[in-house]
C-alpha cells in the first residue's frame, strides 16, 4: 500500500494539510451556485449559423462583393454612358467612319476636333469595336445578357431538376428506377449537337417576328433555353434525389409518418427544408456552367442575335483582330472569368457553410 503511494507521488502532490482550508467552505453549496456553472449558448438557427460561417470565408465574401459590383455595374452603367450598344459613334450627328477599332481612352479625329472645339464627350473606356461602337457599353450589355441567360437557365434547371428529383427520390421503388433510367438516357445525349439541331429546326418553325422580345433574343437563344430545359437538369435531379434518399433514412421522417403526416406534408416540412442547402449550392454552381455554355455557343456563332452582344460573341468578334487589338478579347474574357470564378467560389463557400455533413 505504501509503495503505491510513493509511485503516484513521483509528481509533486499537495497533501490536504498544506491547504489553508477555510472551514466555511465545507458548507453545502446552494443550487443557485451550482447553476451558475451551467450556461446554454445563445440560440441560433441553422440559417444564421451558416451565414456566419459564410462571412468568415474570405473567398466567399470576395465573390459576393465581386458579384454585387458586377450587378451594380450592369444596372448603372447604361444610364451613365451615353452610348447605346448598337450605336455607331457619331459626332454632331455625323457618322464617324474613322472611329473604328480605337484603343481605350483615345479619340478619333472627329472627336478630337469636337473636344478641342469645347464639346464634352464621354471617354471610350474600352475603345471601340470594328463597327465603330463603344466597346465598354457592349461589354456591359454583353455581361447583362450572359448573366440573365445564366440565371434563367439555372432557374429552369432548378425547377425541373428539383421537381423531378424529389418525386423520384420520395416515391422510390419502380418509379425511381424508371425515372433514373430516363435521366441516364438524357445524360448521354450530346448537348451541343442538340442545340445546333434545335436552332436550325426552330428557325424554320417559329415565326419569331411576331414577338419582338423573342426577335431580340434570337432563335438561337430560344433553342438554348429549350436545350437547357430538356437536357441540363439531370445533374440537379440526381443531386436532389440523392439528398432526399439520405433524408428519408432519418428517423424524423419515420416519426412524422407515425404521427400521421401524409406524403405532401412530409415533403414540404421535412424533406425540402433539409435539402435546401444542397439545392441552393447546386443551383449556384449551375450559373457559371450556363454562362459558359452560352458564351461558348456565342463564340461559335450560335448565340444571341446581332447586334445584341454577349460576352461570347464579343470574344468571337475579337478573334479577327487579336494580334493588333488584343484588348478586345481580354475585356470580355476577363469578365467571363470573373463571373464564373465568383459563382464557383460562392458555391463552394455556401457548401462549406451550409452542408451539415461537413460540420465538425
Amino acid at each position, binding site marked *: 500500500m505504501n509503495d503505491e503511494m510513493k*509511485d*503516484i507521488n513521483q*509528481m509533486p502532490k499537495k497533501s*490536504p494539510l498544506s491547504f489553508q*482550508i477555510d472551514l466555511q467552505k465545507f458548507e*453545502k*453549496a446552494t443550487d443557485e*451556485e451550482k*447553476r451558475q456553472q451551467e450556461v446554454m449558448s445563445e440560440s441560433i438557427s441553422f440559417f444564421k449559423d451558416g451565414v456566419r460561417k459564410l462571412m468568415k470565408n474570405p473567398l466567399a465574401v470576395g465573390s459576393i462583393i465581386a458579384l454585387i459590383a458586377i450587378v451594380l455595374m450592369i444596372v448603372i452603367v447604361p444610364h451613365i454612358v451615353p452610348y447605346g450598344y448598337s450605336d455607331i459613334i457619331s459626332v454632331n450627328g455625323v457618322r464617324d467612319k474613322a472611329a473604328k477599332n480605337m484603343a481605350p481612352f483615345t479619340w478619333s479625329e472627329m472627336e478630337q476636333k469636337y473636344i478641342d472645339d469645347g464639346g464634352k464627350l464621354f471617354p471610350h473606356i474600352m475603345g471601340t469595336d470594328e463597327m465603330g461602337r463603344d466597346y465598354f457599353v457592349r461589354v456591359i450589355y454583353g455581361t447583362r445578357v450572359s448573366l440573365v441567360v445564366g440565371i434563367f437557365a439555372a432557374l429552369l434547371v432548378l425547377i425541373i431538376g428539383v421537381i423531378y428529383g424529389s418525386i423520384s427520390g420520395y416515391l422510390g421503388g419502380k418509379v425511381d428506377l424508371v425515372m433514373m433510367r430516363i435521366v441516364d438516357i438524357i445524360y448521354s445525349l450530346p448537348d451541343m449537337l442538340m442545340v445546333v439541331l434545335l436552332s436550325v429546326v426552330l428557325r424554320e418553325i417559329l415565326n419569331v417576328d411576331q414577338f419582338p422580345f423573342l426577335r431580340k433574343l434570337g432563335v438561337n437563344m430560344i433553342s438554348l433555353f429549350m436545350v437547357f430545359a430538356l437536357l441540363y437538369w439531370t445533374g440537379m435531379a440526381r443531386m436532389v434525389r440523392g439528398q432526399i434518399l439520405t433524408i428519408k433514412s432519418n428517423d424524423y421522417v419515420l416519426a412524422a409518418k407515425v404521427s400521421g403526416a401524409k406524403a405532401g406534408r412530409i415533403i414540404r416540412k421535412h424533406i425540402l427544408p433539409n435539402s435546401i442547402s444542397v439545392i441552393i449550392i447546386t443551383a449556384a454552381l449551375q450559373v457559371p456552367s450556363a454562362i459558359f455554355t452560352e458564351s461558348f455557343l456565342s463564340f461559335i456563332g450560335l448565340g444571341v442575335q446581332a447586334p445584341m452582344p454577349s460576352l461570347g460573341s464579343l470574344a468571337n468578334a475579337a478573334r479577327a483582330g487579336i494580334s493588333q487589338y488584343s484588348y478586345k478579347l481580354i475585356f470580355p474574357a476577363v469578365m467571363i472569368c470573373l463571373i464564373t470564378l465568383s459563382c464557383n467560389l460562392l458555391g463552394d463557400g455556401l457548401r462549406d457553410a451550409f452542408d451539415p455533413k461537413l460540420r*465538425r
Partner: protein
Amino acid sequence: MSEHILSVQNLHTSFKTSKGDVHAVNGVSFNLDAGKILGIVGESGSGKSVTAYSIMRILESNGDITGGQILFKGKDITKFTEKEMREFRGKCCSIIFQDPMTSLNPVFTVGSQLKEAIELHTERKGKEAEARAIEMLTLVGVNEPEKRIKQYPFELSGGMRQRVMIAMALSCEPDILIADEPTTALDVTIQAQILELMQDLQKKLGMAIIMVTHDLGVIADMCDEIIVMYGGRVCERGTAEHIFYNPKHEYTKGLLQSIPNVDRMGEKLVPIPGTPINLLNMPKGCAFCPRCENAMKICLDEIPPEMLMPDGHFASCWLNVKEAMEKGEV
C-alpha cells in the same frame, strides 16, 4: 519491486476547435502493471478514449498532449519522435477499436491486413508471415483460418471481425493491449465470447490490458484495477471490490445507483441529476460539482486532491477530506 509497465502522470490533452479549446484530459494519473487488466470507466465526455489515444499518440490533427508524462518502461512516450512512435505502436502497445465494421479496410482481404502488421513489426516475411497470421487466427478462435485469410471483412460477422482485430493487435506480441469499447457494438452473447477470449489470451500471453468502456458490468467482471473518470479527471482508483462495494466519490456512487442491478430489482433507479459536462465550459473546481447532491462551497472553487482511503484505494472528493478532518486524521 516491480516497475510499472506504464505510468501516466498528470496527463493533459486538449483539442483546438472553432469554439475554443476543449480540455479533454485534465491531469490524469494512473499506473499499469505487467499482466494486469486495468479498466477505465466513464461516460461520454469523460476523456477515457482520449486518454487511450494519447497513450498511442493517435489523436486527431487538432489534438495535442499539453502536459504530463507517459512512461513506458521508464521512457517518456510523449517525447518520442514519429519514428520511435511507429516502433512503439503495434510492437509495444496496440489498440482495438469499437466498431469492427470500420476498423478493417474493406478493400483488402483479412489475410493481407494481418500480414501487413506482422511484416512491419516482426522479422517474418511472405510465407512465414502468413503462417503466423493463421496461427493468430487460430489463437483467437476463428474457425477455418486458412479459408478466412482469403476473405474480405464484409464476409465476416461482427464477432468474427472483432476477433480478427484482436488477432491483428496481438500478432506482434505487444506488452500492452488497449481495448477501446471493444464490445459495445456487439450483441450480448458475442460480447461474452470476446471478453472470455480476451481473458484467455491475457493468461496465455501475459500482456497487460487497458479496457476502456462505459459498461460497468464488463468492468466488474474483467478488471483487476479500475479508474473512474469524469470531465477529464480521475474520480476514483481502486480494485473492483473497492469501486463497487465501497465507492468514495459522489459520481461513482451516483453511477452505481442509477443502473439496474439484480439484487435491487423493483426499486426505483436513482438518476444523477443534470446533464453531462460541457467540456467547453468546465467548472473551476470539481468537474462533477454542478450535478452533485452533496456539493460544498469548496467544491465550486478548488479541484479536490487525491486521497488514500482507509481500505486502500484512492478517491478525489472534498467530502472525504471533510470526513478525515472531522475524524481528526488530518
